[in-house]
């Protein structure tokens, strides 16, 4: 039950996000209902048009976050970039066609349809070249991106010659211009975002299997190529609805950055998709809001900068893979290794001398190299754990400390022997930290190793080190 709840929770949350963000584009312009007025307070200081723009770009952010998450995990990020550039000739051609048929050419649905068709054509060209040649994929993407974009620039020139006045606005598709976004544009984005979210919810498990292990998905009988095509088609749709707001050059940022930022926070795909949607929405709403507040600040750029700021914060503070978490993990590892080294060094020194005789620090330094104050720090930490005590002329292990050190030395020596006698096994499987060595090596192997050790040792509780202790001194982690 718990898991079904989980599944629904993520998609319901995504849907709720979508609804909240889309309210302004569906609210009536001036005399909005109570929900509208509540939202107006949130988005206060802005008029209806600004709200529509913020809502529209927020919805775009949701669509981009959701679709982008799968795109990035399928390792197709640059594919998205190529496809978005490939839309430009479609826009110019659609304009020319509309003019030829006697309109002004500034019919948004027709222009976007042209963009979508050109994007799909670019996608098909990439697939055809990839399946029929041995060119590396990045080269293919580069070719398609630049050729389509070049063709688009050339066609834009033609469009300007044909009808200078109304063709002037076409360039805004390259960098995006939110000011021109109307309620109907916002609603179009809302419907597209809903459809994309719905497809992802329905095909979530198929997409997950495809992104993780396409070959396995094929042996299961899933039509991998069609699923891939669908996913890339969704990227094209996202690009097309993003043209107006952020433009075809920057839309890729909204596809890649939110899922990449979300990856620092979670190890679960559903949470990743939801989080990417939220980050995309936040980037869109904040970015277009800021851009509307300050004159001459283009929305596309600001939206990307907001997304980048969120990425930076995630990169540093991300709970799952952020810089801080990793740094903390590294410090913990260093401490653990040092603690082990200190315990082992004390044990090995105490083996060579009468029991309970204090061990001077110089003796520990003779056994192993300790940079700077590392040894003192490790010893003080042992004292805090009651494993060791400082006495007049050195340190002694407490009873607990002896026991702990004995276990550690035994493990270490068994592992060393294992490496020496089973060199054919990949060394990466040696786990020095394993509390119970038997769990990794199996009872029989450990018994064999202990027998091997017993042969060379007169008194068995801890096997004698397989190498002379003094010889290992300068080897660092021997």
């Amino acid at each position, binding site marked *: 039950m718990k898991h*079904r709840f989980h599944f629904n929770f993520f998609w319901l949350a995504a849907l709720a996000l979508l609804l909240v963000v889309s309210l302004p584009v569906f609210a009536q312009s001036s005399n909005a209902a109570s929900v509208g007025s509540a939202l107006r307070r949130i988005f206060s200081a802005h008029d209806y048009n600004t709200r529509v723009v913020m809502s529209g770009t927020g919805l775009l952010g949701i669509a981009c976050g959701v679709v982008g998450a799968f795109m990035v995990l399928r390792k197709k990020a640059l594919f998205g970039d190529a496809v978005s550039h490939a839309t430009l000739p479609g826009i110019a051609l659609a304009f020319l066609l509309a003019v030829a048929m006697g309109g002004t050419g500034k019919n948004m649905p027709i222009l976007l349809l042209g963009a979508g068709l050109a994007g799909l054509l670019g996608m098909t060209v990439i697939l055809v070249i990839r399946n029929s040649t041995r060119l590396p994929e990045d080269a293919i993407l580069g070719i398609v991106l630049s050729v389509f974009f070049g063709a688009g620039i050339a066609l834009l020139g033609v469009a300007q010659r044909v009808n200078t006045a109304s063709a002037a606005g076409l360039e805004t598709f390259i960098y995006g211009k939110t000011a021109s976004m109307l309620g109907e544009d916002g609603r179009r984005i809302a419907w597209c975002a809903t459809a994309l979210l719905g497809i992802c919810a329905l*095909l979530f498990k*198929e997409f997950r*299997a495809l992104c*993780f292990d396409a070959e*396995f998905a094929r042996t*299961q*009988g899933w039509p991998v190529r069609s699923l891939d095509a669908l996913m890339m088609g969704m990227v094209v749709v996202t690009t097309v609805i993003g043209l107006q707001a952020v433009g075809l050059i920057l839309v890729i940022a909204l596809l890649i950055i939110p899922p990449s930022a979300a990856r620092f926070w979670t190890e*679960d795909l559903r949470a990743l998709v939801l989080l990417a949607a939220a980050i995309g929405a936040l980037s869109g709403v904040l970015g277009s809001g800021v851009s509307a507040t300050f004159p001459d600040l283009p929305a596309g750029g600001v939206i990307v900068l907001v997304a980048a700021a969120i990425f930076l914060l995630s990169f540093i503070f991300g709970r799952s893979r952020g810089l801080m978490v990793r740094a903390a993990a590294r410090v913990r590892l260093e401490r653990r290794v040092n603690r082990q080294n200190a315990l082992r060094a004390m044990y090995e020194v105490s083996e060579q001398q009468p029991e309970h005789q204090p061990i001077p620090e110089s003796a520990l330094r003779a056994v192993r190299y300790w940079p700077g104050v590392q040894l003192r720090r490790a010893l003080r930490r042992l004292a805090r754990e009651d494993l060791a005590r400082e006495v007049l002329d050195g340190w002694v292990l407490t009873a607990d400390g002896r026991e702990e050190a004995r276990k550690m030395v035994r493990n270490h020596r068994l592992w060393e022997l294992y490496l020496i006698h089973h060199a054919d096994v990949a060394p*990466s499987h040696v786990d020095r930290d394993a509390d119970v060595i038997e769990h990794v090596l199996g009872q029989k192997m450990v018994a064999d190793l202990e027998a091997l050790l017993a042969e060379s040792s007169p008194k068995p509780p801890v096997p004698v080190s397989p190498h002379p202790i003094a010889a290992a001194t300068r080897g660092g982690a021997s």
Partner: protein
Amino acid sequence: MMLPWKMSAQEPGPEHSPHAPVSIHDVTVAYHQKPVLWDVDLDLPESKLVGVIGPNGAGKSTLIKAILELVPRASGEVKFYGGSLRRHRALVGYVPQRESVDWDFPVSALDVVTMGLYRRIGWFRHIRHRHLREAMNALARVGMDSYARRQISQLSGGQQQRIFLARALAQDARIYFMDEPFAGVDVTTEQIIINLLRELRDAGCTVVVVHHDLQTVPEYFDHVIMLNTRVVAAGPTSDVFTRENLLKTYGGRLTLLEEAAQAVAMTAKH
């Protein structure tokens, strides 16, 4: 001494049984015009552990992929119980090489194993609690149930391999294809895997395993396919796993020859 072209020329191919789990009829596979598998023509026996051995680049993985239609075949055909793969898809389980996927992917061990059930769950349908229970059972069979919630990159190589195996178990197949499941795993994992493979065989499954460690071949496999672009020998291990066949398969690779000699000595003892 037979001349090489005489050896590869098929004497009018062996009789194929319509009841064999897998019948491979003259399969040839080429990558970029260069053939990597020639005229493989054999039946896989029912409820046996079958090892596929041969030097690097001999086409061991390619053979499995050609059977599963993951790589295009230049010629030939593969039948499952006399029918097509499409018809018998549910009978086939697959364990790819561990390196073939990105283990940094944001899924848990349980998520991966559940993928083995997707086919049975069907299009558009959600994963139900009973599916997760089934996946947990598969995890328990490889001793990984206590790691179900771990993100897969936090597992060791051997544990990752066991996750892949559990996913195949969840498929509940009759014929399993495994690509180097013993490569680079720890001793515990190796034991768990081989015990499981024997369990599967005893339950009537056919298990085909690409294997690289010649020393364990006589101990692990009932049947071997010795491959070097073409099939050098195939049959019960006690019949075909001989020094002569190993020499033919591995050619002049000296270190391997030594291993082979040891392995042959072991067969003699068995």
